[in-house]
């Protein structure tokens, strides 16, 4: 048995997990934040625990959109609507000109952005308020990360 090789694997595993953590922490700390209107559901994941499944007002593909292919990557621009941001144009290529945009995937008439789960402590997901707002962070490629949920102007769950 190569003990030193096993120790190298251990170091790589630890380094990998710390790098993954640091990568997402960097996005959370340095990315620009946007507020989206969200609607909740409440399922459970056996590995990561209770979470609130979210659907956003930007999750529905606009009727006039020409894109219909399944599981296809798309780019959605955001436009301000008061304090929150709403869906703008939907394109197959990333937009130019500094306009904020999200990268997603078309799933039928819905768009998935990878920010549809918010993990909560056990039991806290049973009574989810209906007025939820999601604070998201977007990195330059359009990949989003869900930072925090707000209800009634305060972070949720309390």
């Amino acid at each position, binding site marked *: 048995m190569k003990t030193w090789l096993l120790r190298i694997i251990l170091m790589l*595993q630890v380094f990998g997990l710390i790098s993954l953590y640091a990568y997402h922490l960097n996005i959370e700390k340095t990315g620009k934040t946007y507020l989206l209107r969200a609607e909740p559901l409440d399922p459970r994941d056996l590995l990561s625990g209770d979470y609130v499944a979210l659907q956003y007002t930007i999750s529905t593909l606009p009727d006039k959109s020409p894109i219909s292919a399944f599981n296809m990557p798309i780019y959605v621009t955001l436009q301000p609507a008061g304090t929150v941001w709403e869906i703008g144009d939907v394109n197959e290529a990333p937009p130019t000109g500094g306009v904020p945009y999200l990268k997603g995937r078309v799933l039928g008439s819905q768009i998935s952005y990878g920010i549809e*789960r918010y*993990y909560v402590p056990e039991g806290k997901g049973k009574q989810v308020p209906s007025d939820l707002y999601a604070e998201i962070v977007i990195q330059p490629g359009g990949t989003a990360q869900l930072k925090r949920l707000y209800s009634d102007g305060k972070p949720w769950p309390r």
Partner: protein
Amino acid sequence: MKPTQKSLRPHVNAWVEDSLITQEQGDGILARYPTTSTSPATLTFSIIGGMLCILGVVLLVSANWQSIPREEKLGALLGLLTVSTLLGTEGSRRKWHPAIPEIGYFFAAVLPLIGLALVGQIFNLSGSGFALILTWFISIFFLPFLSFSPSAFVVWLISLSALVPLGITEYHGEWFSDEYQTISIIYALLGALVAAASQLWSKAGRSTQRAWGESLGLILTSLGLYAYDCATYYPHSHVPSWEIAWGAVFILNLGAIFIGYKAHRTALVNIGFVMLGIIILSFYCRLAGSMLSTGMLFLSAGTLLIILIFTLRKLRKSILQ
């Protein structure tokens, strides 16, 4: 329990005192036996205890204690991962009880997955399950082959088996009539590959890993073929594919039992019998057409099998003579 030097020494000393054997002969006899024994029950129950502990860790992580700072949660998990791997390496090197390094390696194989789930939980990531399992599989890819740990190898096989349905469903791989049948066929092929590749463990003198590989391979292939036609409500052709697939499982497990008896592989015999039981009961309950045709099928298969085994026995005797 197998005899050891410790258990035999009083008897050998008595034989030497009675001048039945010389001291050198006594030492020679003792040298043929291990110093201490490892009870398979102790090892098995230790691994079951380890499994319960790891499930406990999973549930503690799932409970999502937001009062604990996330850096501390990740730090505790990385600490546990480090301790587990060191327990495995040091336990093997210092010849501790085999259950201790085995539990260490078992934790070292599962904890990277819990770590990935924890990071996903902290940052609310809802990405691909395939990517999660693939990252886990890559992170433990070399562990069973460097540690020679059977439990790490079983975890490795489970992660490999989990990749197949996740990859096919997420990327909509339909190389056969639908995703379900694609998964079944890939499972059947993967099982055969795992069982065949596990023979390489014999070269390293690791019969436990070989037995696990053969057993899981046989289970994967049998279940893959068994489930092949279960979800097809509107068959594309009139060929009764489930009867062919179940028949293949029957013959495969007959072969496994035969090899198991010939090569003294108890696991193959046991699994083969369980699978045969499932297949015969399934045929009986589902009925291949009607009671008449199922009855005829059972009668002909049973008669054929009896004739075949006696013919082979007679043939073997004539060759030996």
